């Protein structure tokens, strides 16, 4: 093994598998009452694909690839901004209105 460079696909696979485990365990702790905000925030998070779109849009000269990239940026930016904002709007509604009585109502 020493001196041999690991193929990036193996490193990627390692990251992928471990991230699935993290996701699995974290998502089970989400309270069912917040499952809709969970969906909208995961939506916003998956729009991190915008990173790939930005890279595609800006290699230098404008060509087919960079225009496709720019189109992807515009489309997915709707999620990036809209996804987090609508989540914020929903969570705002879950804010406590009256301070009395706590914890007993919500599980975990």
């Amino acid at each position, binding site marked *: 093994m020493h001196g041999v460079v690991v193929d990036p696909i193996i490193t990627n696979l390692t990251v992928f598998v471990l991230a699935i485990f993290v996701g699995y365990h974290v998502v089970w702790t989400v309270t069912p009452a917040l499952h809709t905000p969970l969906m909208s925030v995961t939506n916003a998070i998956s729009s991190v694909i*915008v990173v790939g779109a930005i890279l*595609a849009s800006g290699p230098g000269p404008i060509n087919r*690839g960079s225009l496709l990239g720019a189109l992807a940026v515009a489309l997915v*930016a709707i999620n990036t901004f809209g996804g987090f904002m609508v989540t914020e709007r929903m969570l705002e*509604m879950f804010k406590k209105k009256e301070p009395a009585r706590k914890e007993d109502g*919500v599980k975990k």
Partner: protein
Amino acid sequence: MSANAIALWYLLASVLFILALKGLSHPLTARRGNRFGIFGMAIAVVVTLAVTNRVELAIGALAIGGIVGYVVAKRVEMTQMPELVAGMHSLVGLAAVLIAMAVVSNPAAFGIPAPIPTANRVELFLGTFVGMMTFSGSIIAFGKLAGLGKQFRLFSSAPIVFTGQQPLNLVMALAMAALGVGFVIAAPGAEWTPFLLMTLLAFVLGILIIIPIGGADMPVVISMLNSYSGWAASGIGFSLNNPLLIVAGSLVGSSGAILSYIMCKAMNRSFFSVILGGFGAAEGAATGTAEQKAVRSGSPDDVAFLLGNAESVIIVPGYGLAVARAQHAVKEMAQKLIAKGVTVRYAIHPVAGRMPGHMNVLLAEAEVPYDQVFEMEDINSDFGISDIAFVLGANDVVNPLAEEKGSPIYGMPILEAHKARTVLVNKRSMASGYAGIDNPLFYMDKTMMVFGDAKKVVEDIVKAIE
């Protein structure tokens, strides 16, 4: 910025995304979680812009998309959340496809050598295929959820089934795999034909797998597409050797998968039977016999009297309540009852709305304090010791037939409203629910029906409570 520095920033963004999800474990920490998510996204975007040669194109596109996103997020009604989420899934899917096309078109921009290596091609194929199916499938889901069935038949909320549907899907899937192989082994310059054909096929297949799924199963579909959009992002992350995309994509992918599982369990359906579709095709078939049996019905005044004299009341809201926009009236009713010393709680079935957790959001919007709102497993044992269960616009989720062997919904977990001392039910008419099954709860001796529009009825009850 060095490649190592970029990777470390991306690592930070990944951690922030995980914290964003973790925050949702409680309403009190949820907003902080969302801020973590925003922060992570900002890091990812800024770092990427910093290493890009040409930023004006990207910044312009970000501004356009951002404005559209802003307007949509501000304007959307809470009842429209399922459509919004479905629409957003489609955008992620389409973006994945466009990025894959950009890679095929100009691999050097991503640091990929000119004849794209085999491994990258396999990843591109997977990312495109999943992305395109997410795109077209989500559009169908959007149409179904937005009730556009009248405008366009493919959007019909009733399942669309035809003979040979599954064999056709199988053939298409095989053809897609063949084209995928064609793309992977294609000579430089000849990649486009198999790639575009495969994309087209994925588009059609995405439509075909969603149209046979009926309206009642939409919570599963929307969770499933959530999962797909995550896997598409992961797939693109693999092609670009970008760990941030891989991590974010797998978080979303597993989240959607878990939600699909929870929804399936809540309906006692196997994931496969949902995917194969056709459920709800016989909608309304079992109604006819119901009308003869006697039901006891009462007026809003009667209900107000019963509620006012109760000690504990559990309200069971269903989607019918949201359709009638009666949440605010219900909250007012609950407030009046609480002021009289009545204990009022809400019981939420996991599939009470059109997507996971939908009913909780609708109640939160009406400013119902979240500590009065309980999940099924937390409150079910309390129906037996409650004076009144007040069912508003819900049907199948309180159907006691689910406990009887041989009934079509046997095994589906229900809210045990029938165990309360008195059961009050508001419905528009005696029509059966999504599942098309009669509900014995309505004919029990202790049940009183109040017919009419939920909002009107509840407002009348509010007036009548003294």
